[in-house]
């Protein structure tokens, strides 16, 4: 299937963070398969996020840390938490591996967790980056042994004498099966199987056998001296897990409002048969003709991170300084490494209220200060002046607007750069700019 400009923009907005105009135009007429293959091959070689000093912040977890040092390190952990947050936003905006980063962002919301130690968060993020396009089984095993997650959901406190069910419950409710597909007894027994799953002072996973419950347990019809890995295997045998993950992927990448059950059922069948190959699932979605249907294009509300990274990619603006960037994330309502709770960010309409919408309408104008408009304008040098409103609207908005409304307010006698600038500023104020 050969794609037109609008469909290509759609592909890059949904699989990444938007692309510059010439990048899009170079690919008009190419097939979905070709472009998706390109996205995958770009993602093969990737860079980790590395801004946290390993030795120093591993030390934060030592119980014999001298008191004076602990105070300094705790203070620094707050500073580096923000360093980490900003570093990832910048990485997302500038990445050469958009699909891999986008998957990492998806899993970051799916396996939502946070920690006071920025190092465990960075480690988790790199694990998600490494495995996010691979096999869901590997990913699930890794996240279940991940220090940030183990601590966040209280599994470090899960001991034979005083079980903590938090991880076992969320594992099933939010990470794999979904509500209604397990019993309270399953939660209790899974919790027993995970007793002792913790990490050591080097931030490495380990099972503390002294507090592990070795008794016989029954989980989803299987009885035996079950350990954590057995529980994960039993969960992965359930087709419902494939269905649950497919549904979540579909809602995130395709359409959060209306779900085509036939599509879900066929996608999750292949996902299960492939042995949970995430890359294959993703490829199947983005090469399917229904993904490029008018019902799907331009219907999704950009998340704050999509909005912000999109500003960088669509307009070539520089990202603001660290302090401003933190403030912008806060005011838009999404701070990376700080999901609201274990169920992640509620996507879609939840992003938009009166205050965030008003803020989104005025933020571009602020980000434009100091922007090189000649550079932006040079991308449209082959376009007739009279066609500029329609052409730029076609690039910036995936939801079509009445261009004549825009045109009647423009000064066509102005220089081309000024005209383009005026068009761009006005277009960002249309509510349609919030869609992708």
């Amino acid at each position, binding site marked *: 299937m050969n794609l037109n400009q609008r469909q290509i923009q759609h592909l890059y907005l949904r699989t990444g963070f938007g692309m510059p105009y010439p990048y899009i135009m170079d690919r008009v007429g190419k097939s979905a398969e070709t472009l998706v293959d390109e996205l995958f091959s770009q993602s093969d070689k990737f860079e980790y996020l590395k801004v946290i000093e390993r030795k120093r912040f591993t030390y934060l977890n030592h119980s014999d840390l001298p008191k004076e040092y602990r105070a300094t390190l705790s203070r620094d952990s707050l500073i580096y938490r923000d360093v980490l947050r900003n570093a990832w936003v910048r990485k997302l905006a500038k990445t050469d591996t958009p699909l891999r980063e986008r998957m990492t962002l998806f899993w970051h919301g799916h396996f939502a967790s*946070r920690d006071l130690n920025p190092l465990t968060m960075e480690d988790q993020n790199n694990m998600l980056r490494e495995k996010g396009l691979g096999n869901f089984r590997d990913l699930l095993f890794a996240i279940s042994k991940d220090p940030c997650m183990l601590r966040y959901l209280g599994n470090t406190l899960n001991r034979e004498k005083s079980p903590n069910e938090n991880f076992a*419950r969320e594992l099933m409710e*939010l990470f794999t099966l979904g509500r209604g597909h397990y019993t309270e007894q399953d939660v209790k027994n899974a919790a027993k199987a995970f007793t002792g799953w913790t990490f050591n002072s080097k931030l490495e996973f380990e099972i503390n056998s002294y507090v592990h419950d070795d008794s016989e347990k029954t989980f989803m019809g299987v009885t035996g001296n079950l350990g954590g890995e057995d529980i994960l295997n039993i969960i992965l045998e359930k087709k419902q897990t494939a269905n649950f993950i497919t549904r979540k992927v579909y809602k995130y990448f395709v359409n959060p*409002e209306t779900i085509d059950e036939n599509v879900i059922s066929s996608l999750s069948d292949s996902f299960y048969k492939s042995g949970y190959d995430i890359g294959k699932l993703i490829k199947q979605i983005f090469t399917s003709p229904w993904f490029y249907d008018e019902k799907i294009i*331009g*219907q*999704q*509300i950009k998340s704050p991170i999509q909005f912000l990274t999109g500003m960088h990619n669509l307009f070539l603006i520089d990202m603001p300084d660290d302090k401003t960037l933190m403030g912008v994330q*806060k*005011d838009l*309502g999404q701070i990376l490494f700080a999901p*609201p*709770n*274990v*169920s992640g960010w*509620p996507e*879609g*309409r*939840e992003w*938009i*209220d*009166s*205050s*965030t*919408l*008003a803020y989104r*309408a*005025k933020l571009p*104008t602020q980000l434009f200060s100091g922007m090189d408009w000649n550079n932006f304008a040079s991308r449209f040098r082959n376009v007739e002046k009279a066609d500029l409103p329609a052409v730029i609207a076609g690039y910036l908005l995936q*939801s079509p607007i*009445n261009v004549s*409304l825009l045109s009647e*307010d423009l000064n066509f006698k102005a220089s081309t750069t000024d005209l383009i600038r005026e068009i761009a*500023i*006005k277009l960002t*104020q*249309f*509510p*349609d700019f*919030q*869609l992708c």
Partner: protein
Amino acid sequence: MNRSRRDFLKHSVFASTGTLMVPNFLKAFSALESFESPKRIVIVQLSGGNDGLNTVVPFRNDLYYNLRPKIGLPKSKILGLNDEMGLNPGLLGLKRLYDDGMLSIINNVGYPNPERSHFRAMDIWQTASDSDEYLTTGWVGRFLDATCEGVPAVPHYAMEIDYVLDMALKGQDTKGIAALVPHKLFLTLRDGYIGKIIEDYKKNGKKDASNVSYLYKTMVETYSSAEYLYRLSKIYKSNFPYPATSFGRQLRTISELINSGSVTKVYYVPLQGFDTHNGQQPRQEKLLKTLGDGLKVFVDDLKKNGTLDDTLVMTFSEFGRRVKENASAGTDHGTANNIFVVGGKLRKPGFYNAGPDLANLENGDLKFSVDFREVYATMLNKWLGMDEEVVLGKSFTNLSFI
């Protein structure tokens, strides 16, 4: 709102606006008149987990001093309310309200299987969920949904005086509005191109269930609310001596909105910094002083303007703290806590129920006896005239503090 202020409001609209602006504002104005009751609530969110036991102090109880040798407040400093209980020295303002019968203290408020994470506990309080239930709408938001069902949504029915809208004020179809300086919202929107986009949408735009319609609809509502709040800001300026803190300024903003006749049903204001793991006493006292001093002036302001009797203030925090102090002269995350209710027409001023039983703890934590949703249900039902089941999903015992 009394008749003269309403007339004044009407006159001021026509006196101060160009004809272009009138229709929108009148639309909002007619919504005002559709409300039978002017009753409103103000919610103060003490973020971080306020230590309730050093807020309302059981100063006759030896267990209190045994468990808190460093941070237990000495009797001499406590503002006594009765023979057993007194307030933190920072709460002189609240003590005055207590003496005037305008404060009700509800003890031991919580919920089953309490959560100790700030984020999760705050979620539970804001969404009014069970502790193992994840909801994506807030309880005030669902109140908005029910109030605006079938009519155009009015975001300023619920206002948070802050930059960002908390989950509590987000409903499924209707969301409240957040603004630190409400009248400035309109100034930023007015100067842009948005007015023109909105006018065109009203004439030609699609109105369906799609996301694009949702965005336009929200923009229209935002513009109209912003304009309403801007007009309102010309009506009443308070010259009461609010403390020079951001919380003081936020309360002044709320008072100005109320006394200008805003139709807002719920105001929401956060006060941060209660996570006192170390060096608790001076920090907490300072925060409580900010709270108490602010609320005292706020009540005086409303009373003078005849709006106090229709206003109910509630304070809450996401959890209380552990009974035993920690090694750093602070306290760690705990469970049940007290709630303050302030108003001119309380049915049960003073102590609503007995204070915590320190001899009967659960793993070193206070046991709850009042579900926080009973407090919400009471305000919804008895004050805002809304069936609590619609908002909370099930019915809860109504309390008798109002």
